């Protein structure tokens, strides 16, 4: 019965909440709030500043890179690892083809999946340990940061438990945790996955107009 619930209606709910929620957040933030025109005479193009800020934001400034090595390395390990296994692992591609896109695409070999998941787990655990130990992040972290980390970890852990596809219970547990994450996603800190683009763009444009490269 639980399996039917998870594979059936709860999946539909999660899908709707996820896509509608994200769209809702993006529309309200980007279109419905006060945007304030900049009346000053620009020195350079704000548009190119916005694009460049999005590109340059992917690597840290050399002036701080030695201080933030762990966050950068573990951050990329986690994000890249998760991206690869989420979108290119064979069981996921099969699922996406069946339930979302209708078509299949290239998958990574099994060893690639293993390597990606090693990076993802190591990155996530290191980041969370660092978040708790560093006095700065311990002070500024909110409940939603910890909930998001734990939810993502549970999704990854249940995924790894279900790897042998030995039982439907483990697959259902994994899917259930994914659905919980999808419902939590649009109204949490995880929205940074989408919001970082307008965030960098606004600052890039703001400073780009002034002739400063972010």
């Amino acid at each position, binding site marked *: 019965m639980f399996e039917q619930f998870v594979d059936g209606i709860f999946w539909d709910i999660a899908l709707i909440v996820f896509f509608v929620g994200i769209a809702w957040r993006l529309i309200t933030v980007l279109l419905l709030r006060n945007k304030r025109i900049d009346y000053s005479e620009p020195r350079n193009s704000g548009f190119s500043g916005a694009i460049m800020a999005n590109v340059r934001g992917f690597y840290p400034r050399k002036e701080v890179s030695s201080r933030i090595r762990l966050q950068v390395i573990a951050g990329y390990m986690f994000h890249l690892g998760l991206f690869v296994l989420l979108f290119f692992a064979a069981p996921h591609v099969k699922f996406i083809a069946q339930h979302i896109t209708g078509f299949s695409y290239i998958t990574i070999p099994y060893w690639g999946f293993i390597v990606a998941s090693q990076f993802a787990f190591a990155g996530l655990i290191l980041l969370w340990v660092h978040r708790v130990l560093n006095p700065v992040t*311990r002070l500024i972290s909110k409940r939603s940061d910890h909930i998001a980390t734990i939810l993502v970890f549970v999704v990854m852990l249940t995924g790894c438990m279900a790897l042998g596809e030995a039982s439907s219970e483990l697959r259902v547990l994994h899917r259930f945790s994914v659905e919980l994450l999808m419902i939590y996603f649009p109204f949490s800190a995880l929205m940074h996955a989408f919001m970082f683009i307008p965030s960098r763009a606004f600052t890039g444009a703001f400073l780009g107009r002034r002739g400063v490269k972010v």
Partner: protein
Amino acid sequence: MTGIKDKKSARKRKVIFACVLSLLFVLTAPLIPYVIDAHAEDDITSKADKPAALQHPAINLWNEVRQRNEVTQGTSQVKGVDSGVLINKTGEDWRRFRMEMLMPYGAYFMGAIIAAIVLFFLLRGKLRLPGGRSGELLCRFTLNQRTAHWFAVGIFWLLGITGLILLYGRFVLIPLLGADGFSITASACKEMHNLIGPLFVFAVLALLVLYIKDNFFNRGDITWLTKGGGMFGGHVSAGRFNAGEKTWFWLVMIFGFLLCITGLILDFSIFGQGREIMALSHMIHGISALLLIAVSFGHIYLGTIGVEGTLEGMTTGYVDANWAKSHHDLWYEEISKTSEKPESSEQDINKGITSSSTKPAPNPAGD
């Protein structure tokens, strides 16, 4: 004001505890139907009498085929490692080692360590800080060292628990979950253990690089050991790490290294390892794991409830000066000559007090 803070941190602990319990519940909930089934089946046990043993008519032939006396390699059209072996005799040796030696002795060893800890606690109790806290803090572990330690802890326990379930699960969990329930559990644990396993390599390497400097043995360590580390009364000198800590470090390095090598052999069995290598690796893996798990109980005890003032060194990075004087006096003398002392309690900053004070805080960050 202190009362409000205590209530806040107590509430925070309850919330965290509730979250951890919920998490465990979510992860184990799918097994509930199996628990119910397992106990329902207990009433239907067949206790039919076993027939009396009869000698097999072709026993001699079978013994030869079975290769009980010597192993001979045959030929086969199947190409592969060990494909010329019809029946693997060494497999039985391995199975017997696992069932008759590794598992029981491992359990006894772990039990003995736990019993020793309990006994020690009942007799000596928590080793208090002589003279109480001075309030003066010294930086003991940097952020990188603490991150590496707790990362290793997380990986060690993920692997340890899944490994123990794989080893002992059938005795403890089948009665609880039934065969089907345990099958799911064991499958999940196997996948988890195999996937997380390689991360232990990085954990051990990180610990090696970050902690090796002060962990070499010297003459003073012999004195420390002969005096029982001051655990039974009296004071004994020690540097940054005492002989007990150094022993633990090298145990982790040696047996951790063995765990890594054997684990990788077992995990990635596609490189031509035959059954004998796999069996040997498993034996070494099992012994190393049980040894480390058992000794880790001691490390955990001493690092948490056993010795007052120790845990904060690995959580905040700072220890009280009295703790340093009492347990690592030579390190205390060295460090108090050179390092900058913090001006306020790191504990206050960690609790995120939002007072208007601009008092600076100590820095446990950096290499």
